[in-house]
């Protein structure tokens, strides 16, 4: 699959929640974060969102989000979302909401965005083991 030009990422953020206002379709990002503390692993993150703002989205593009554990670069999960017939003069927003996502171990995890298998951008979060009983 080919396209012209390559979409360009203006912003990519991880947050607790993405609210899309009915009527205006404006997005509000609540609780932008890059670090999660947990007393135990594996841990389930009940809800979080990934917001991406893109330029130059023309025609039909399959966006792919890959969730990768960085220390050994293993792929935890992958999702694909086809976007069709966008107005190229306007930025495109992806608001991805995930629920009950299980993280196996502490460490850095990355959300990698691809468009038609072309790497575009990444956002990283750090999962930290927190000793609740420690000083």
């Amino acid at each position, binding site marked *: 699959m*080919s396209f*012209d*030009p*390559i*979409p*360009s*990422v*203006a912003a990519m953020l991880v947050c607790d929640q993405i609210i*899309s*206002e009915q*009527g*205006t*379709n*404006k997005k509000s990002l609540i609780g932008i974060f890059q670090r999660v503390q947990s007393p135990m692993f594996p841990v389930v993150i009940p809800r979080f969102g990934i917001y991406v703002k893109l330029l*130059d989205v023309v025609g039909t593009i399959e966006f792919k989000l*890959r969730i*990768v*554990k*960085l220390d*050994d*670069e*293993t*792929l*935890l*999960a*992958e*999702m*694909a*979302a*086809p*976007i069709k017939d*966008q*107005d190229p003069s*306007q930025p*495109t*927003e992806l608001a*991805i909401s*995930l629920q009950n996502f299980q993280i*196996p171990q502490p460490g850095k995890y*990355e959300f*990698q965005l691809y*468009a038609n*298998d*072309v*790497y*575009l*951008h*990444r956002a990283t979060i750090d999962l930290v083991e927190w000793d609740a009983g420690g000083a």
Partner: protein
Amino acid sequence: MAPIAEATYQNFVPGSLRLAGSGETRPGAWSAICELPGQGSRQPARAVTADLRFTGQDAFAASRPETVLFGGLNDPRLRLLKPIPLKVSREGERTRVSWVEADTAASGETLTCAMERFGTRLRSLFYELADSHSLDADRARLLEVLTRHVALRPA
């Protein structure tokens, strides 16, 4: 020494201030209030349902391919016209990506780290060559390769 300029300022305190409304004028206050129409995205919201495919916990798939298509230029002044094919290799603990046609490479702790550094190198190389007034044959050929993939974004 006499002051060369005088400034006036106003301290704001917590609380609220009522601005003058239509038909009500005060010196220094707005004489009319313009009510903006509703602001919103010009594109309708479209919900797309996508499946999240988990890889098996016991057999995580390696995400270090042998080649990758690069599109992460991350420069608002530039636009990538077509993806750049990168060869991926390991250098001890580090990952190296190389664009064979342009003889340009970068390395990092992870694949995405290496690609981010490659993007930085590509941007500086493009600006350096595009701003040069005289290029030798090798650098002119490199600029020709670059401009097949990278272009300035129209203002």
